[in-house]
C-alpha cells in the first residue's frame, strides 16, 4: 500500500504489521498527552513535587535524554570534524535519536514550568548569569541544528525526492553539512556543560556544589564529557534494538567497533575525572561547608545511600569502560550490549543523583530528608516523549534510507 514511500531496494514488513506494532507506543503517547493536558490546565498540583522537591523526575528526564542524545553531536563531530568516515553509516540514525531526545527535552520543559505561556521570557528577559538560560538557548538552537541535520534525510524519502527542488535542496544541504555539524558540536559542548552547571553552581546546596579548577563549576566539563561518552552508547544501544526488532543487520561491525572504542576511551577518561572530582568534593569542598561526606548518604531509609555512588562509579562507570576498551570484550556481542546498557544507565543515574539528591538532603541542621515519588501524571508525561521517539524512529526507518549499509547487508532477492 505504502510501497511508493518505502526506500528502494529494501524490504519492509507489511503496513498492517507495522501499524499493529505502533499501537502500544501510540497509546502511550495519548496517555502522556492527557497527562500533559492535566498539567497545563490544572497546574503542577498534578505532580507530587513539593516546595522541597522543586526539581524532580522531569528535570532528571530532561538531563538524561540530553545526555543520551549527546550521541548525535559527538558522532557528528567525529564524522564531520574529525573525519571518521566510517561513521557515515550510523550518523543518520544518531541524528534521529538525538532529534527525538532533544524534542523530548523541550516538551518536558514546556510541561515542567508553572507558566508555559510565559516560557519565552527565558529568551526575552534572559538573565545571562543563569545556567538555565544558557541551557534554554543552546538547547533550542541545537534542536534547530538537529532539525537541519534531519531534514536532508527526510528529503530523501522516495516520494519527496521526486520533486526537483527538494532533491536539490537535500543535495545542497549535504554539501555544507559539516558547517552545521560543527556548529552543533560547538553548541552541544556548551549546553551539555551548562546542564552540568545547573546543579554545580548551587552553592547553597553542598551536595550539588562542585568547585572548579579553571572554570566554575567543574561539573561543566564532566557533563559534556559523559554525554560524549555515553551518547554514542545510546545510539548503538538503539541501533542494536532496531536490528533486533527488524531481524536485520543494519550497520557493519567495524562501525560499531570504532564507535565503541572511542566511547570506551571517553568513558574511561571520564570516569577517572569523575572519581577525581568526587574525591576533591568529598575531601575539600564538603568539609568546608561543615558536612561530613557520609552525611550525604546516611538517611534513615537508605534511599539515598552510598550504594548509589558505587553503582554509578564502579558498576556503571569502570565496568563498561573496561569492556569497551578491551577489544575482545567489546567484540563479544553480549558483553558489548552489557557495556552500552550500563554506560547509558550510568549516565542517567549520574543525572538522577545530581538532580534528586540535592533536593532530598537537608542543609539546615534541623531540616529533614525528603522523599518523593512521582505521580502518574509525571510518569505519563515522561514516557510520552519516549513513546513518541519510538514512533519517529519507526517511521523514519520505514520510509527513509536511514542505514546506507542496509541494502548491502540485506540483499533483496528479486522474485
Amino acid at each position, binding site marked *: 500500500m505504502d510501497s511508493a514511500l518505502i526506500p528502494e531496494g529494501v524490504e519492509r514488513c507489511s503496513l498492517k504489521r507495522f501499524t499493529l506494532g505502533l499501537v502500544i507506543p501510540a497509546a502511550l503517547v495519548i496517555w502522556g498527552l492527557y497527562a500533559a493536558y492535566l498539567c497545563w490546565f490544572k497546574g503542577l498540583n498534578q505532580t507530587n513535587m513539593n516546595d522541597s522537591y522543586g526539581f524532580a523526575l522531569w528535570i532528571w528526564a530532561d538531563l538524561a535524554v540530553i545526555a543520551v542524545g549527546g550521541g548525535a553531536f559527538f558522532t557528528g563531530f567525529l564524522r564531520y570534524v574529525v573525519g571518521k568516515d566510517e561513521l557515515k553509516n550510523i550518523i543518520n540514525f544518531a541524528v534521529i535519536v538525538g532529534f527525538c531526545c532533544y524534542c523530548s527535552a523541550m516538551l518536558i520543559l514546556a510541561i515542567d514550568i508553572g507558566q508555559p505561556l510565559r516560557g519565552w521570557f527565558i529568551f526575552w528577559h534572559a538573565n545571562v548569569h543563569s545556567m538555565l538560560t544558557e541551557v534554554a538557548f543552546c538547547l533550542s538552537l541545537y534542536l534547530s541544528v538537529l532539525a537541519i541535520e534531519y531534514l536532508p534525510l527526510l528529503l*530523501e524519502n522516495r516520494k519527496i525526492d*521526486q*520533486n*526537483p527542488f527538494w532533491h536539490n535542496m537535500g543535495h545542497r544541504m549535504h554539501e555544507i553539512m559539516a558547517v552545521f555539524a560543527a556548529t552543533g558540536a560547538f553548541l552541544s559542548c556548551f549546553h551539555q556543560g551548562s546542564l552540568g552547571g545547573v546543579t554545580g553552581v548551587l552553592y547553597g546546596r553542598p551536595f550539588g556544589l562542585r568547585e572548579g579548577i579553571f572554570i566554575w563549576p567543574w561539573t561543566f566539563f564532566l557533563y559534556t564529557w559523559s554525554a560524549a561518552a555515553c551518547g554514542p552508547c545510546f545510539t548503538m544501544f538503539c541501533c542494536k534494538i532496531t536490528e533486533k526488532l527488524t531481524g536485520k543487520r543494519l550497520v557493519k561491525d567495524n562501525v560499531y567497533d570504532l564507535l565503541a572504542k572511542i566511547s570506551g576511551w571517553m568513558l574511561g577518561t571520564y570516569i577517572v575525572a569523575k572519581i577525581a572530582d568526587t574525591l576533591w568534593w568529598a575531601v575539600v569542598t564538603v568539609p568546608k561547608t561543615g558536612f561530613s561526606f557520609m552525611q550525604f548518604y546516611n538517611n534513615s531509609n537508605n534511599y539515598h545511600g552510598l550504594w548509589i555512588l558505587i553503582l554509578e562509579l564502579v558498576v556503571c562507570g569502570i565496568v563498561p569502560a573496561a569492556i569497551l576498551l578491551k577489544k575482545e570484550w567489546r567484540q563479544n556481542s553480549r558483553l558489548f550490549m552489557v557495556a552500552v546498557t550500563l554506560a547509558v544507565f550510568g549516565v542517567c543515574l549520574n543525572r538522577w543523583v545530581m538532580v534528586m539528591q540535592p533536593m532530598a538532603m537537608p542543609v539546615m541542621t534541623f531540616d529533614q530528608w525528603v522523599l518523593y515519588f512521582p505521580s502518574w501524571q509525571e510518569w505519563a508525561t515522561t514516557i510520552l516523549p519516549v513513546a513518541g521517539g519510538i514512533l519517529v524512529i519507526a517511521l523514519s526507518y520505514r520510509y527513509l534510507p536511514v542505514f546506507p549499509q542496509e541494502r548491502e547487508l540485506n540483499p533483496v532477492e528479486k522474485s
Partner: protein
Amino acid sequence: MSLPGEKQTGREQTGSSGDPTNKGESGLVALFFIVGLAASLAIGWIVFPKLLYSKSEQPFDFSHVTHADAVGDCESCHFFREDGTYAGVPTLAQCTECHEEVQGESEAEETFVNEYVAEEKEVPWKIYSRQPDCVFFSHAAHVTGAGMDCAECHGDIGESESLKPYEENRLTGYSRDIWGKNIAGMKKNSWDRMKMEDCGACHKETMGSKGACFQCHK
C-alpha cells in the same frame, strides 16, 4: 543515503510535474503570493487591532476643562491623602460636595445626579491609565519627589472637554493607553505608552538606573 560519488541512474518519470518554462504560470504564482501577503498584512494591521480591543463609553461624559475652571486646579479633585497615598479618581462623596443637586443643564450631570448621587452609587469610571495589579506606582515619588507634571504621563486629559471612549484589550484586560494607541507600539509623546520599558527609559535618563524590580512592582 548515498554520497554524491555513488552515481545512480534511473530517473523516475512519475510526478515531475514542474515544467518551469511556463512564464504565465509563475506570474500567477507570484500573484497568489502577493494576495496572501496583502490579505494577511491587512488582517494583522487593521482587522486584528479592531478585534483585539473592545471600545466602550464612560458611564457619562465629563469635561475636565469645565471642572478645572470651576475649582481652579487639578489637586482639588486629584489629591494626596495625609498618609502620602494618592486618592486618584474622585469618589462619589467628593463629587457630591458640589453636585448634591443638578447645577447646569448638561445631560451628563443629570445622569450623574439622578443615577449615582441619588442612588449613592460610586461611578464605575473606566480609568485609561490604570496599571495592572502587579505595578506599584507612587504618585508621591513622581509628583512630589521628582516634581513631574501630570501631563507627562497622562497627556492632555486635563484639557479635555469630553471623555474619549475607553478601549480595553480583550485578552489582557488592560487599557489600550498602557500598551500604546499605535498597534506597532510606536509612540510620539511620553504619554502614548506606559509599559515597563517606558518607565525604565525615564528612570534611566533621570536617575541613572532603571531601578530594582521592587521599586515598581508589588
